[in-house]
């Protein structure tokens, strides 16, 4: 992985020193809250309901074992011994104190981490395919470009005060595992006519109050032109983005107001005026950064493993875990291991300090020292030898991390909601817990098949509810928490925004409504190979709406209707 050079180290240390001074001045009264707030936000420090929250950047979701152990140490020393992994592949500490923040920032700097640009109207932490570098369907490792973008966008003087936050996601694989179509800019590494690699560029995707699926602005951008092209996009946005209205300030609004063709015309006109050689990445620099991401030299290993097969045969829980959480690695004899942070009844995305240490330890022993964070709020060991799967599994069982539900209905994505968040309308975590409890039987969950369920506590959509196959949005109705359900969203290559199925439900009726939706799918699917999303696209929302609100509705749903504010 990337290692800081002297420049990076000096820069991060200098920022930590500045921040320490800013906090000291705030505590002594030299800075007012108005003066201090933008400074703390530039360092990822928010004030939430109960405490300060620190959002730490995990560049493109990549962590070393040492870094994860340090996060565990921070959780123990300055928080309540846990952290929350987020849909932006970051980690948030929910219980920090302002007076401790400088020490935490120093502890992060010790392991080449920071919280810079995790908030504010700047280019935020770039997110990427969590299987980068190891995926079987990958054209080129996107981490190299993600690191290039990190360096390009870090305190870029022109893009530090944008109209609004700006999020970039990148993948180098055939399958989109980074939700690139829901980002301000989505980048997909593709092959050009001569077999050379370049970028397909999408712009104007996003969630929040006005969700949009990104539009293709460039079909094939030569790779050595990436930075100048992005700079052109940023300049057009910086100039014309709506600074007068926070709800219209994201690039998606500009792209849709101008229309894609006009937006593209303006970007290309701007691009033509730029001094590209001074902006674009020199080939030597690419080579220098790429060297950090050289694939580990893996010993050849047999793809067949008799011990593994025997264990799968005799241990159904292990077999289920292998089936759901373990995926193909580009090298035979090795596997990608998904670690679920979604044990039913627990808080989605939370990991205790002990669990972080356990994962770090497994990464050291069996995982080439690497961990990834996914936007589904889970962890990944990207490279594990097939023969070590059983040992990794046993370690995960001991740490309470062996839930076998990757991409299944209990792999719920949920934001902190009203239990922590200052902007929330409604709680998200207890809804996730109740739904997961309803679907606690792994056999039932398996038979439902792939199903994304997402919950956000308000329209900001931090829990990606718009992109969930089933989405749940917390709304406030005359002081009570209500939940609106959407169906048919997708965060993948077939990206779609879910349709609102009908009037909202009170909290106690949400789990029953989800059961009704799943039961309807079960009844109407062609066969078990037809996933929820495919069935929904064939059937439309009518049968689900009827089941939830219609006369023939099941008891739970009828009660829900009575409680719904039509």
């Amino acid at each position, binding site marked *: 992985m990337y290692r800081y050079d002297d420049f990076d180290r000096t820069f991060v240390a200098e920022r930590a020193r500045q921040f320490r001074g800013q906090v000291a001045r*705030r*505590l*002594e*009264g030299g800075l007012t*809250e108005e003066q201090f707030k933008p400074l703390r936000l530039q360092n990822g420090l928010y*004030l*939430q*309901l*109960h*405490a*300060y929250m620190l959002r730490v950047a995990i560049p493109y979701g990549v962590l070393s074992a040492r870094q994860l152990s340090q996060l565990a140490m921070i959780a123990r020393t300055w928080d309540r011994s846990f952290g929350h992994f987020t849909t932006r592949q970051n980690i948030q500490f929910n219980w*920090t*104190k*302002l*007076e401790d923040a400088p020490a935490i920032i120093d502890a992060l700097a010790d392991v080449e981490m920071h919280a810079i640009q995790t908030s504010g109207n700047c280019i935020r932490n770039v997110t990427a395919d969590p299987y980068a570098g190891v995926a079987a369907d990958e054209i080129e490792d996107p981490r190299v470009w993600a690191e290039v973008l990190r360096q390009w966008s870090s305190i870029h003087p022109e893009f530090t005060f944008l109209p609004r936050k700006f999020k970039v996601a990148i993948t180098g694989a055939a399958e989109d595992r980074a939700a690139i179509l829901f980002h301000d800019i989505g980048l997909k590494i593709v092959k050009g006519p001569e077999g050379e690699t370049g970028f397909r560029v999408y712009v104007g995707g996003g969630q929040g109050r006005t969700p949009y699926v990104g539009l293709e602005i460039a079909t094939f951008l030569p790779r050595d032109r990436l930075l100048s092209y992005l700079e052109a996009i940023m300049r057009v946005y910086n100039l014309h983005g709506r600074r007068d209205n926070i709800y219209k300030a994201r690039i998606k609004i500009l792209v849709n107001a101008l229309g894609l063709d006009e937006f593209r015309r303006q970007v290309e006109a701007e691009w033509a005026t730029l001094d590209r050689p001074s902006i674009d990445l020199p080939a030597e620099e690419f080579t220098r950064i790429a060297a950090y991401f050289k694939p580990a030299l893996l010993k050849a290993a047999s793809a067949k493993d008799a011990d593994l097969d025997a264990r799968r045969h005799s241990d159904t829980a292990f077999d289920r875990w292998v089936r759901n959480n373990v995926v193909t690695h580009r090298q035979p004899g090795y596997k990608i291991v998904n670690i679920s942070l979604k044990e039913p009844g627990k*808080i989605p995305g939370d990991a205790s300090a002990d669990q972080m240490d356990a994962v770090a330890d497994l990464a050291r022993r069996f995982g080439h020292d690497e961990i990834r964070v996914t936007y589904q709020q889970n962890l990944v060991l990207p490279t594990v030898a097939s023969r070590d799967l059983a040992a990794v599994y046993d370690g995960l069982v001991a740490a309470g991390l062996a839930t076998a539900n990757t991409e299944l209905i209990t792999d719920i994505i949920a934001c902190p909601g*009203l*239990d*922590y968040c200052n902007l*929330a309308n*409604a*709680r998200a*975590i*207890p809804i996730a*817990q109740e739904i997961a409890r309803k679907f606690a039987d792994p056999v039932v969950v398996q038979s439902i098949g792939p199903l994304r369920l997402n919950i956000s506590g308000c329209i900001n959509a931090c829990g990606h509810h718009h992109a969930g196959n089933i989405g749940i949005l917390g709304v406030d109705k005359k*002081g*009570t*928490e209500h939940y609106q359900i959407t169906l048919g969203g997708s965060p993948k290559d077939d990206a779609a925004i879910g349709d609102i199925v009908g009037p909202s439900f009170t909290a106690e009726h949400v789990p029953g409504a989800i059961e009704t939706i799943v039961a309807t799918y079960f009844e109407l699917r062609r066969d078990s190979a037809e996933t929820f999303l495919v069935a929904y696209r064939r059937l439309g929302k009518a049968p689900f709406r009827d089941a939830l609100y219609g006369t023939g509705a099941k008891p739970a749903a009828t009660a829900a209707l009575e409680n719904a504010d039509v």
Partner: protein
Amino acid sequence: MPNVVTANNLRSGAVVYLGSAGRWVDHLIEAAIASDAPALKALETEALRAVESTEVTAVYAMDVAVIAGRPEPTSVRERIRAAHAPTV
């Protein structure tokens, strides 16, 4: 509706309420209740002083229901804040 004044402790971020004699307290039950506009104004003036002396931040007045002489939160959000903990 009666009001109390709440804020977050500047150093720790913890939820606090303005009690009697300008003291900031952890528990809503100890908060000073303002039942009319002049009383609320007095609490807010007091709170502003605490902002200036860097004791608290994010000050605001909130509605409470007074039940048997005790202030009770009237929203889920304020119930969660008053508990100093998530509900999960």
